[in-house]
């Protein structure tokens, strides 16, 4: 292909087009090519060379915990962080959770689906529980009874273990310390 050959960059310096044009193009968003090389598409121009770009993960939905409360008998010795990512509570407490499946923009996705949420011990004990989380129109309410002293964790990796790539969920994570 004759003419002047360029890769054109987006604001992140990633090549989004390769063109053959009549004349020279000016500006830092144009990188002169020696051939019509479409292999640079999707790569980032460092100023000297092309580097691969790791694509950001695509999520089907974001799991957002919107409230956590402890039962009345344990509310006084339960501390819940403002961002709802950390809970300190006592053995015997029942924590009540409300969670939403949200779109990127924060709107609730009207999805009816049940998930098995793994609650994994993060203290080396290899203990593991599965909690039934039933979303109705994108909102789930569920209770978890905590009967042993343990550090429990739910994170993005574990909730996605058995999901297909197009079902992946984004989750900020939750740590629950159950104290005696």
């Amino acid at each position, binding site marked *: 292909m004759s003419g002047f050959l360029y890769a*054109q960059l987006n604001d992140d310096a990633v090549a989004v*087009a*390769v*063109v053959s*044009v*009549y004349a020279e193009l000016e500006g830092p968003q144009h990188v002169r090519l020696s051939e019509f090389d479409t292999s640079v*598409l999707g790569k980032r121009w460092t100023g000297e060379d092309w580097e691969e770009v790791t694509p950001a993960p695509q999520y089907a939905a974001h799991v957002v915990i919107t409230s956590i409360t402890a039962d009345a008998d344990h509310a006084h010795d339960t501390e819940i962080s403002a961002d709802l990512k950390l809970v300190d509570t006592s053995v015997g407490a029942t924590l009540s959770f409300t969670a939403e499946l949200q779109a990127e923009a924060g709107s609730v996705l009207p999805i009816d689906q049940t998930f098995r949420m793994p609650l994994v011990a993060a203290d080396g004990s290899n203990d593991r529980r599965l909690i039934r989380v039933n979303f109705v129109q994108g909102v789930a309410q569920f209770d978890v009874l905590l009967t042993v002293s343990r550090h429990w964790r739910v994170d993005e990796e574990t909730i996605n273990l058995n999901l297909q790539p197009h079902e992946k969920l984004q989750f900020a994570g939750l740590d629950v310390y159950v104290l005696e």
Partner: protein
Amino acid sequence: MSALPISELFSSAPRSVIKGVQRGVMAFSASTPSTIEVTISPVDPLKSFVNLLGCVDRGTGASHMSIELKNATTIKGVSTAANAATINWEVVEYY
């Protein structure tokens, strides 16, 4: 009536009705919808048109792709593909 010499006939005839062709490929990442604007050498929009030569949607869902000559120096492509996609295009300019 005097006839034109053959040599003058050839020299006065246009060499081609096509002034030039510019081509390219634009690549969309996975997002819906997505727009890419590509800079080309200036053309006269009244004497030019853009062809969509082909497109590839690397996903499985339905998608819509379009391309237009936005102005004398810009090609605008739009893809509603939820996955990576490419559009091959050309702009043909006439005298």
